[in-house]
C-alpha cells in the first residue's frame, strides 16, 4: 500500500503548467498513474485532451519519454516501442528494466482504437493501457462515444424534446478486455487514489498486457463546477455506476464495495449532462439506467464470489 507522503516525495513525472481545464480528471489520472510506477516508464498517448493539453510545442508536461502518433493507434505504437525494447535489450543496447504505458481517452479506446488495443493484448505486449474514460469525445467538443451512458446529453446525442439524450447503453469495454485474458485488468477512478495506485502497480508487475479503465469526470462535458471532480468520482463508485474491481488469473475481485449502495440519481443530479432527465415527462430513462447499473453490479457480485 502506498502512502501519500511517499508518493508526494517523488520527482514529478507529469508536471504542472499544462493547459488542462481546472478540475480535469484526465490529467489527475495521468499524474497518479506515473506516480504509482516504481520502474522507469515510457509513455504513449493517443490524440485527445490529454495529448493536446500536455504537449503544446515547445512545452511538454511529460518528464518521462513520451510519444504521440495518431488517434486510433496508441496501442499499436506502444506495441512497437515495447518490441524495440525487447530487441535492443537482447542486444545489450538497453540495460535498464523499463515499463510501458499507453494513455487513450474513451474515444481513442472504446471506439477508434479498439482494434489496435485488441491486437496489442492478443500479441501479449508487456504494456499497461490506461483508458481515461470521460464518457464522450471531450476534445472535439463533447460528442457521444460508445462509452457515453444512456440518458447523457452530448452535442451528438442532445437532450431533445423527443429524445432525451443518448438512448443506447454504454459499451462494457472492461469486460471486452477481460475476454482477451490479459495479465491484469481493472476499473479505477481518481477519487480512490490508493485503489488506483495499487492497481497501477499490480498492472506494471503483471507478466503481460494489462488494462485499467479509469473513470475520469470531465467538468466541462459533464457540466459541474470544477471543485466537484473528486466528489463526482466518488459518487460514481457509491452508486455502482462505476464499480471498482480487478481481474487477474481468472478471478474477479471488487476492490471497493460501497457501504450503502446509493441510487444513481445521487450521481446523476450532480451533473448538467443528466439535468434534462429530471424534467422529463416520465422516469423511464432514469429507471432504465438504474436497471442497467443494478444488473451489471449484481453480475459483478456473483463473479467476484466465484
Amino acid at each position: 500500500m502506498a502512502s501519500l507522503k511517499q508518493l508526494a516525495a517523488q520527482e514529478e513525472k507529469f508536471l504542472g503548467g499544462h493547459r488542462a481545464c481546472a478540475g480535469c480528471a484526465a490529467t489527475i489520472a495521468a499524474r497518479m498513474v506515473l506516480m504509482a510506477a516504481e520502474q522507469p516508464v515510457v509513455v504513449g498517448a493517443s490524440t485527445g485532451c490529454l495529448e493536446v493539453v500536455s504537449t503544446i510545442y515547445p512545452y511538454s508536461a511529460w518528464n518521462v519519454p513520451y510519444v504521440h502518433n495518431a488517434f486510433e493507434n496508441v496501442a499499436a505504437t506502444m506495441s512497437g516501442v515495447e518490441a524495440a525494447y525487447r530487441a535492443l535489450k537482447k542486444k545489450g543496447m538497453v540495460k535498464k528494466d523499463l515499463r510501458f504505458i499507453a494513455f487513450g481517452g474513451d474515444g481513442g479506446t472504446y471506439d477508434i482504437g479498439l482494434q489496435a488495443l485488441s491486437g496489442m493484448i492478443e500479441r501479449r505486449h508487456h504494456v499497461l493501457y490506461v483508458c481515461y474514460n470521460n464518457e464522450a469525445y471531450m476534445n472535439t467538443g463533447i460528442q457521444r462515444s460508445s462509452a457515453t451512458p444512456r440518458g447523457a446529453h452530448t452535442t451528438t446525442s442532445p437532450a431533445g424534446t423527443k429524445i432525451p439524450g443518448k438512448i443506447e447503453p454504454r459499451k462494457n469495454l472492461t469486460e471486452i478486455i477481460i475476454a482477451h485474458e490479459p495479465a491484469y485488468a481493472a476499473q479505477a477512478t481518481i477519487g480512490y487514489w490508493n485503489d488506483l495506485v495499487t492497481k497501477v502497480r499490480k498492472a506494471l508487475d503483471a507478466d503481460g498486457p494489462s488494462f485499467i479503465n479509469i473513470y475520469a469526470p470531465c467538468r466541462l462535458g459533464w457540466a459541474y463546477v470544477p471543485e466537484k471532480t473528486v466528489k463526482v468520482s466518488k459518487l460514481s463508485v457509491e452508486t455502482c455506476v462505476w464499480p471498482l474491481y480487478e481481474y487477474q488469473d481468472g478471478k474477479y475481485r471488487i476492490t471497493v464495495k460501497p457501504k450503502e449502495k446509493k441510487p444513481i440519481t445521487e450521481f446523476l443530479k450532480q451533473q448538467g449532462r443528466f439535468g434534462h432527465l429530471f424534467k422529463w415527462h416520465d422516469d423511464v430513462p432514469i429507471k432504465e439506467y438504474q436497471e442497467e447499473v443494478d444488473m451489471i453490479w449484481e453480475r459483478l457480485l456473483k463473479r467476484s464470489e466465484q
Partner: protein
Amino acid sequence: MIVARTGNEAMAEAMRQINPDVVAAYPITPATEVVQLFSKFVHDGKVTTEFVPAESEHSAISACVGASSAGARVMTSTASQGLALMHEILFIAAGLRLPIVICLVNRSLSSPINIHCDHSDSLASRDAGWIQIFSENTQEAYDSTIMAIKIAEKALLPAMVTTDGFIISHGMERVDMVDDAAVPKWLGTRQPKTSLLDVDNPITLGALDLQDFFFEHKRSEIDAMNRVLPIIDEVQNEFAEKFGRHYPIVDEYKMDDAEVAILAMGSTGGTGKVAVDKMREQGKKVGLVRCRVFRPFPKDQMLKAVTKAKVLGVMDRSDTMSTLGGHLYNECRSILYDSDTRPLLKNYIYGLGGRDISIEDIEDIYTNLFDIQKSGKVDKDIVYYGVRGE
C-alpha cells in the same frame, strides 16, 4: 552467390540479411510472401528480429513508428489497400523523421478490386514525405532494399522500395546475392540521435505544433527531402564500390543518339529495353529513360535524360484522375516548363490492374512516336493504351 529468386523471395532475403530490430507487418496479396518468408526466418532463428504480426496495416506501420522512435531499425512490407490503410501514418513517420523502410509490392487500388500490378498505390502516397525507389527487376529490388536502409538512416526520412506485383514479385529471376555477413557489416547499426528508451534523457515526440512552429518544422522536412538525391548517389556509389553493381537515379538506355524515347518506371523499363534493342537492330534511333527514384523527383537528372530526345512518350501505370494524365507525365511537363529544349510529349497510360504490356506494344508506341516526330505534332496528348474502346 547466384541464386534463382522471385521478387518477394529476394526482398525477404534482403530483410534476413539486414536483420532489422523490429518488423511489424500484415499479409496482403501480392506482398504476403515477403512477410511470410520473413516470419519463417524469425521462427528458424535465422534473424534476431522482434516480429510484430499486427492486426492491420494501420497498426503495422503504427508499431513501426513506435519502434523506430525507440531507436530500432525497422522494416515492413505491404501493397495496395495495405498502403492506403497506412496512408495517415505515412505522413507521421516522415514528419517524425523516422527511417522506416517498406518493401512495397505495387498493386492497383480498389475499386474495382484487383490484385495485379499498377502504380496507383505508391503514387497515391507520393506526397507523404517518403523516398520512393522503383525496381526494374528482382536484382534491383534486392539491392535497393539493402541500400534503402542506409539512404533512409542518412536522410532521416522513411523510404519505400517497390516491385511490380506478380511481374517481379512472383517472377523467378537470377539474383546475385551478397554474402550474409557483408550486409550488416556494410550497414552498421543504426545510430539514432534520440530514443524513447533513453529514460535518463526523456524526449517528447509528436507534440502539438500550432501556428507558431508547424511551418518551420514542415519546412525542415522539405529541406531534408531536398538533400536526399546526393545521399542516394553517395550510397549507390558506396554500394557499387563494395558489391560491384551501380545504379543511377535516372536510368538512361541508349539515349545518347535517340530521336524518340519512352520514359517508364518499374518492370516496363526492362520490357522497354528489349524493345529498344529490337528496333535498334532495324536501325531505328530509339532510347529509354527509366525513373528509378520518383520521390524526391530527380529534376536535373531527368531533364538531362529526356531532353536528349525529340519526342518523348511518357508511360504511366497510373492515372491522377485529374484529366491531366499520369503521375510521371505531370512531373515531366512541370520540369520541362523552364527548359530551353523540350521534346514533344505524349502520355501513354497503360497496364492498369495488371494488363500486360508486351515488347510489341512498346514497339508500337515507338512507331507512334516516330509518326509524331515526322508530323511535328502530337496527335493526342493523353492516350489510354491497350484499353477497349480507345
